[in-house]
């Protein structure tokens, strides 16, 4: 993949820190994400990947530092505010309501309304379309999510992030519970997202899954950035060294 030219990043972090009590999850993070770009954030368990996604998606507020959209500082008070700025996230735990059905989950918080009432027909039609794009096999869009398998739930969560054509899509550990075929399907989907002009950020604790699709790889270690690599040129050993902190 081509290296992104020097241009304004869609979403940036400048010196962002975040603590949970005495534990410092993020420490002085700088990060840029551009349109037409897939950024992989890799790191060991506890490196701060989920916290990073939390800050970018508005689910968590940074203690220090700034979040910038199009180089302008913003305050993401909650996920809805981030959504309004075109930032969508799929969390590691998927954040689906098990008692709601597939359609209800897909459109939760952004339901189309027709004459004061929910437009179920429009939602259901769009739901089939989105799931079709992901090649997701779901027995029915009208059964509660509690009745779906782990892979099917992940597909629902990713389909939800695509609603409203967000500019930035954040995927927290999307490959964690997928089989090999599903990972391949997922990577194809990510390439399609990039081709459509989305900026994509994916976190993973696995090196091998994302190198095929990522343009840049950012390594997190113990809450700090520990190297940024061109995905085409970096070697597995370089990444492993940066992740574990072992000198090569």
């Amino acid at each position, binding site marked *: 993949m081509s290296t992104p030219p020097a241009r304004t990043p869609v979403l940036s972090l400048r010196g962002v820190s975040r603590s949970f009590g005495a534990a410092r999850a993020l420490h002085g993070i700088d990060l840029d994400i551009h349109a037409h770009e897939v950024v992989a954030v890799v790191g060991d368990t506890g490196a701060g990947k989920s916290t990073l996604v939390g800050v970018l*998606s508005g*689910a968590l507020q940074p203690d220090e530092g700034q979040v910038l959209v199009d180089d302008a500082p913003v305050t993401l008070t*909650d*996920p*809805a505010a981030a*959504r309004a700025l075109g930032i969508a*996230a799929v*969390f590691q735990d*998927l*954040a*689906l*309501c*098990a*008692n*709601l059905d597939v359609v*209800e*989950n897909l459109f*939760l*918080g*952004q*339901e189309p*309304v027709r004459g*004061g*009432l*929910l437009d*179920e*027909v*429009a939602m*259901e*039609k769009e739901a*089939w379309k989105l799931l079709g794009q992901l090649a997701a*096999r*779901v*027995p029915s869009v009208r059964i*509660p999510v*509690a009745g779906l*398998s782990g*892979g*099917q739930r992940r597909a629902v969560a990713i389909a*939800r992030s695509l609603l409203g054509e967000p500019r930035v899509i954040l995927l927290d550990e999307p490959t964690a519970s997928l*089989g090999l*075929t*599903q990972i391949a399907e997922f990577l194809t989907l990510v390439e399609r997202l990039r081709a459509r002009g989305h900026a994509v950020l994916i976190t993973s604790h696995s090196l091998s899954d994302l190198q095929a699709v990522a343009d840049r790889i950012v390594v997190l270690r113990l809450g700090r950035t520990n190297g940024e690599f061109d995905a085409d040129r970096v070697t597995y050993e370089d990444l492993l060294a940066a992740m574990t902190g072992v000198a090569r």
Partner: protein
Amino acid sequence: MSAPLATQPRPGAELWQRLRTGEMSALPIAGALVLIWIVFQALNGSFLSSDNLVNLTQQSAATGVIALGVVLTLHLGQIDLSVGAVSGLAAAIVAVGSVRIGWPLTLAVVAALAAGVLIGLLYGAVHTRLGVPSFVFTLAGLLVVGGLQLRVLGSTGSVNLPFQSWLVRFCQTSFLPSALSWLVVAGVVAVFAGARLRDRARRLHAELSAPSLASVLVRVGVLAAILAAAVAYLGTNRGVGSVFALFVGLVALTDLALRRTRWGRFVRAVGGDAEAARRAGVPVRRVLVSVFAACSTLAALGGVLAVGRLAAANQASGAVDVTLTAVAAAVIGGTSMYGGRGSAWSALLGILIIQSISTGLTLLNMDQSVRYVVTGLVLAIAVVIDALQRRAREQ
């Protein structure tokens, strides 16, 4: 890997699965109500007389409205234990305001409802800002509001409403004229049929799976038959009471709000998984506050209807009995205690079941003790079914 599409469950197995997981909540409960009616009719021939059924519907309305509020809080996985006390306070405000102080009755009713709104907003604020479990602070609210009720009533402790006041007439002697009843039935059936057919046409147009025309017509026919039978049979006596019509109307409106509005979907989402709902962009705090406010307001309205029905407010208005009956009605009617599941109609079905048991036992000259025991057993059965359905869903 791929979804198991191959095995089509047998129709019987599918029905059992839906029953087991509580996907079809209203039908089995309506069946239970019919069963209770058949049993009491067999024991006492006057149970299903139109006179008794009119009384039954009239007696259900006030506590039914309170149960409707409880259904809303249960949807969130929360509970408001002070609904009885709030209804008692509302009754006291109406009686004391209009009789002792001399306010116009309408103003007294508005003041009572406003007190309900205020109490609910307070509960919502305490819950969302401080994170106190609702069953504890509404228990505190029960005592505080009960105390306020005694203070409002003053030393005599009992205030009578004049029988010619509109509230008493509305709750005791006002019945829908026969022609109006039939007009309402025709209107409801027409709107229901129109909505179903239009929905079907839109689904077909959007190339989605749609119910067959026959199944739509059967549903419309069943609704028309139930409504017509009820209006015709009650019409052989005094007819459909205004206060009962108001209650059923409120249930239908709440059902529409829960199923077909964004607010209703937010309520079910927050009840299912509040954190997931928050991250999806649902304004969780506002939803919680709105539900506590709606619950207390409905409780206050129930108190207003109760003071009209008894033409008096006293220290026993809205006793603990009322809270327990309202909560029991919501659960017996099929709304889950675990949040996120239920239906507004469970308030109607639940209160009808409790009231039927109560009236039926009275007709059999059984006393209070038997009534408590039987209602308690029915509640226990309902809670056990709720728990079993939850287990079945989680598998």
